[in-house]
């Protein structure tokens, strides 16, 4: 799908901006380790994508993540001491703005701003069409190993926005966010987060929307507010189609929530057009 086609396929009911502060978008799934797969085969997995992603980097693995529901939301991070673990591989395009992350229980697709940060966001519809292909290629490969389709147990979509501060007035969080105000007091820095349950049509929990706003500096030393919205949870069925539905719904929730939680001033600055 071309970028133009992606824009024309965008749902009409979603808020839209001509100059959003979007810095990075991630689509990902977590699955049970496929039978018959071992790290020695990671090169074969790279070969599935190597034509478009000719560069590779090794990273430490992501830990398993699960959203569960009951008395309260799960607390902090959990990491058990275990022995050897599968690396996480980045398969990168030459430009570096899109990459695939793969490990024995994950496949993610990232887009990010790079260089002078002028590379345009290719849009969700374009990204998810590519991601569908990548998931199907991986599934075909894994079926070849042991006849088992991917058993997807979690999905995650994240939008990471970098709001660059251009003057002292814009240092006030309330200039940008409807849900943060420190009154007349100026604070050195801040961090604010929230989690809310995402429910299905029947009102049952399906995942969580996780929001975080934090002040900091980017690699150029500019003052920024980083505003991250993530939707994570289990697909209705452990299949690719169901996972893609979850990601699409998560994207809609994120875009709506982004518009609800940011200020009119911010919308003017980002040229809200819908």
């Amino acid at each position, binding site marked *: 799908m071309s970028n133009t086609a992606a824009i024309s396929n965008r749902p009409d009911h979603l808020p839209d901006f001509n100059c959003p502060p979007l810095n990075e978008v991630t689509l990902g799934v977590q699955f049970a380790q496929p039978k018959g797969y071992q790290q020695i085969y990671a090169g074969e997995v790279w070969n599935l994508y190597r034509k478009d992603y000719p560069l590779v980097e090794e990273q430490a693995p992501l830990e398993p993540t699960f959203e*569960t529901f009951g008395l309260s939301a799960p607390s902090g991070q959990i990491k058990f001491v275990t022995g050897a673990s599968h690396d996480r591989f980045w398969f990168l395009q030459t430009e570096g703005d899109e990459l695939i992350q793969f490990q024995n229980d994950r496949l993610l697709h990232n887009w990010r701003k790079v260089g002078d940060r002028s590379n345009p966001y290719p849009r969700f519809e374009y990204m998810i069409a590519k991601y569908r292909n990548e998931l199907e290629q991986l599934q075909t490969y894994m079926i070849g190993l042991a006849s088992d389709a991917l058993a997807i147990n979690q999905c995650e979509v994240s939008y990471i926005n970098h709001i660059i501060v251009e003057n002292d007035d814009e240092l006030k969080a309330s200039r940008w966010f409807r849900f943060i105000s420190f009154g007349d007091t100026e604070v050195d820095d801040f*961090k604010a987060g929230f989690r809310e349950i995402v429910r299905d049509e029947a009102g049952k929990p399906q995942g969580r929307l996780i929001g975080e706003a934090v002040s900091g500096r*980017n690699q150029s030393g500019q003052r920024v507010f980083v505003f991250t919205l993530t939707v*994570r949870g289990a697909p209705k069925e452990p299949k690719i189609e169901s996972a893609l539905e979850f990601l699409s719904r998560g994207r809609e929730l994120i875009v709506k929530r982004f518009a609800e939680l940011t200020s009119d001033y911010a919308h003017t600055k980002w040229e809200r057009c819908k």
Partner: protein
Amino acid sequence: MRLTEIDYGSSINSLNANIYQFSGSRERILLTEPVQVWHGEAVGQLEKLVHLQPGWDGYQAEPVSFTNATFALRMLESICGDDAPIPQIVPGVSGDLQIEWHTLQGDIELHVKAPNDVRAWHSQFTDGTKAEEIDLTFDFIEIAAWVKKVTESAIAITTATA
């Protein structure tokens, strides 16, 4: 899994669960926030189970999988109140595990076969409720009520003893 690096300042450490960067060691380490007694004990038990040697049963049993252990702990966090009694955690032979409470009030057994695939069973002795078995995915609100009922007496005894 975000990629971009931001300096949040020395006074702020991100709590965001989608930051997964590690430096140096390839070993996974334990970093958690125990706020309840059962939590620390459960982490300890699970750590032992993921370190079982293959064939620990004298046959071909696998150690409890890291993924199942992580899911089980998340499940317990959704089930147990602050003062919940410590459960027993028993390994299965296929990387699965079972979490159990056995009290004078009744019994609960939760078989974690895989993430989002849990068989739950309980029987209650005091109110005449028959044994019940249900399949669950990731919503454990019903089990939280079971645990509260079945363990109330255990909590009461602990409190009286103290």
